[in-house]
């Protein structure tokens, strides 16, 4: 059979209706695309675009209340939607394999990883025990795991996130499938790990000649690995084509909007020097976590923040960048005294706040506010927005009517309707909730804002709006902002200075131009090299 002319997979006018009463009638509507053998097709879209839905339909993983109403999914000439469940079971794993976003929940925690890889072959009746064992070693080695012979006896919790994802990939490859579906496989991973996994997927795709369907929300990742791209919006395919065309000459307005929202270092527009007085000075701040350790065992000691020093002026944005476990969030929590500090000084407006008792610090809290990461858990579900915004000022002895007037004003400032005042958090989207979180922080007229991964949970277009909002507010209110993020691209876009954290230490600190163009520390170089889509400039694409 000629693979060049017959696509491996053809999705043909597929429609999946949603149950009545939701905001739209179709999860996906009349979508068509093809996947050829030996190519990587990226399906891109924001949350709720229906990008995972077709993958689930291909694997027969749709929940029982969703049934495709129209269209076909033709895999090697046969319609998967018309197949019976036993037939599908034979295809799953053997011809089509899938890897998921969260490798920890996709692996059985009570089974050794080698057994889990072998199980794939066992359920398909492949080989005998000895040949399966050989194959497991071969696969673990192939996906780049160190020392397969001993690693296969490890339980998933012993492995790092990247290693778990490699095990998942080994499982997917066990039966040499013709097609691999990867549903956001790197979203839960750190950038350096993400770069390695992307490299691995590209390598195995080339080696095995598989067709890979790669679902992602990140255009940087698309730029790195895609041969062709499908862009989805609210259940519709709005644009598809060769990667270079879609990325550099997007046609559809939605694609253009998405690409324009991709965070990217603004070149040329070096920000005017924030010339305010020094607001915050941190000297040799240390925080150590001790866990476990009783009479008979040694305590595990982690230096989360290790002698960190920096200073911040009014109107300035300092980006704190690092991977998970680098101590960047702990640093933020220390600054707000949400956790106690083991040593060092935090001088806020000249006064050291470290020795202050919680009661003595409470009146000062209004000057230092925080924007939280998760827009869903950071608002009390049982309180109205008005209550959420006025609680802070009322606790600081502002009369209720003045606090309410200010709250309505703030809703306008962050771009929400005044009617939001009497509504509850669940009525708002993630981006709107994050705006409410920002309004809450501003309600106290703070001088310093600590934003801990405040845009990480948001879709790119919403993320761009929130970043823009933060920048506008900073200019208007002369705020100092500490922006904690794992995403160097975001930090480069909005920060005046960037501090790179690694294992509790600030390894390098400087303006984005220096960090990007002349990184001094080896870790910074590694981090920058791992940024997805580094070579691609989204700004030029939508000029």
């Amino acid at each position, binding site marked *: 059979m000629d693979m060049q002319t017959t696509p491996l997979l053809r999705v043909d006018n597929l429609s999946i209706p949603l149950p009545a009463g939701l905001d739209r009638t179709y999860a996906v509507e009349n979508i068509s695309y093809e996947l050829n053998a030996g190519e990587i097709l990226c399906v891109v879209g924001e949350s709720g675009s229906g990008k995972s839905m077709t993958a689930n339909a291909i694997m027969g993983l749709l929940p029982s209340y969703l049934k495709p109403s129209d269209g076909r999914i033709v895999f090697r000439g046969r319609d998967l939607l018309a197949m019976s469940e036993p037939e599908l079971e034979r295809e799953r794993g053997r011809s089509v394999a899938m890897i998921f976003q969260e490798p920890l929940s996709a692996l059985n925690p009570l089974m050794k990883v080698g057994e889990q890889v072998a199980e794939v072959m066992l359920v398909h009746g492949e080989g005998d025990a000895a040949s399966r064992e050989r194959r497991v070693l071969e696969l673990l080695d192939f996906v780049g795991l160190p020392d397969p012979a001993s690693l296969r006896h490890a339980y998933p919790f012993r492995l790092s996130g990247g290693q778990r994802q490699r095990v998942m990939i080994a499982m997917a490859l066990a039966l040499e499938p013709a097609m691999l579906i990867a549903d956001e496989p790197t979203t839960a991973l750190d950038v350096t790990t993400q770069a390695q996994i992307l490299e691995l997927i590209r390598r195995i795709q080339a080696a095995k000649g598989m067709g890979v369907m790669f679902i992602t929300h990140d255009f940087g990742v698309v730029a790195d690995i895609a041969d062709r791209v499908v862009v989805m919006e609210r259940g519709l395919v709005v644009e598809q084509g060769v990667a270079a065309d879609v990325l550099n000459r997007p046609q559809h307005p939605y694609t253009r909007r998405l690409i324009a929202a991709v965070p990217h270092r603004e070149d040329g527009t070096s920000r005017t020097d924030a010339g305010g007085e020094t607001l915050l000075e941190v000297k040799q701040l240390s925080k150590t976590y001790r866990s476990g350790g009783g009479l008979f065992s040694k305590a595990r000691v982690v230096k989360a923040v290790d002698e960190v020093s920096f200073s911040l002026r009014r109107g300035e944005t300092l980006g704190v960048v690092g991977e998970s476990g680098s101590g960047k969030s702990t640093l933020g929590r220390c600054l707000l005294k949400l956790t106690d500090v083991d040593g060092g000084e935090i001088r806020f407006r000249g006064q050291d706040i470290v020795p202050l008792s919680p009661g003595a610090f*409470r009146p000062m*809290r*209004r000057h230092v506010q*925080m924007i939280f990461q998760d827009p869903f858990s*950071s608002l009390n579900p049982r309180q109205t927005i008005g209550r959420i915004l006025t*609680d802070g000022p009322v606790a600081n002895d502002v009369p209720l009517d003045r606090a309410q007037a200010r709250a309505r004003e703030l809703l306008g400032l962050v771009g929400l309707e005044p009617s939001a005042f009497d509504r509850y958090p669940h009525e708002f989207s993630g981006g709107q909730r994050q705006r409410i979180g920002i309004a809450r922080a501003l309600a*106290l007229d703070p001088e310093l804002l600590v934003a801990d991964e405040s845009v990480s949970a948001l879709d790119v277009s919403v993320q761009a709006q929130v970043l823009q909002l933060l920048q506008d507010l900073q200019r208007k209110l002369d705020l100092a902002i500490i922006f904690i993020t794992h995403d160097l691209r975001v930090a480069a876009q909005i920060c005046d200075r960037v501090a790179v954290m690694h294992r509790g230490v600030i390894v390098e600190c400087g303006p984005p131009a220096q960090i990007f163009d002349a990184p001094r520390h080896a870790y910074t170089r590694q981090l920058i090299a791992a940024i997805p889509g580094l070579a691609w400039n989204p700004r030029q694409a939508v000029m």
Partner: protein
Amino acid sequence: MTFFRRYAQHYGALVGLAILSGVLLVALLAPLIYPVSPWQGVGEPLLGPFEDPAFPLGTDMLGRDIAAGLAYGARVSLLIGVVSTAVAVVIGVSIGALAGFYGGRIDDLLMRFTEFFQTIPAFAMAIVLVAIFNPTIASITLAIAVVSWPPVARLVRGEFMSLRSREFVQAAVVVGQSGPRIMLTQILPNTLSPIIVTASLMVATAILTESSLSFLGLGDRNMMSWGFMIGAARTMLREAWWMSVFPGVAILITVLAINLIGEGLNDAMNPHLRGRKG
């Protein structure tokens, strides 16, 4: 009204509500239906049920009307059930909230205190408490409350500990709200559902405990109670079955009704279970 609709999807819960309303109505109207004290003999002793239309459930060995006893007993059972549960919930929530919110030394101290109560068999302790104080309705209520708060404290502590680390609580700390205020306005409203469900089931347990105490002769001498009626009937079990069966049935269906209501509340309030019958 969506809450009531969710509740009403559970047929058992509706039946429970109907039964409990009936019991409540009888308890409220008891002095009107039976103006004479239930302790007073009003007819021939040991009349079987339906032998005399005036006493449909029969009379006991002193000629007291069983039906009147049941009606007045309902008052005692419901009163003790509700009041002792309310007291237990107040104690349990306070201790659990303090332990869960502040953690550390305070948590240790309060939880060891709770365990002290948990390790003593609840019913034995209730007997001792009632025996030390004179058995009055107040001392019985208090004794039941004292032995039934530990599970509430444990539950509330767990909820507070998990909500304590949620971002909206951290946000309340950051805007400068005081500890007690955060506990009352931020965390407590989010723990109400499990507390209400547990409390509804505790009412049933309290009614059973009161009946058991009365059965053993540790009831309030001035109040007619179902447990006392069964206790008094045990010597006549073979001669007059109705004397123990009717109060027994009354306890059974009241406790059953409350359990059904508790289960209905749980299904209606617990978002994870919503639509599981779907």
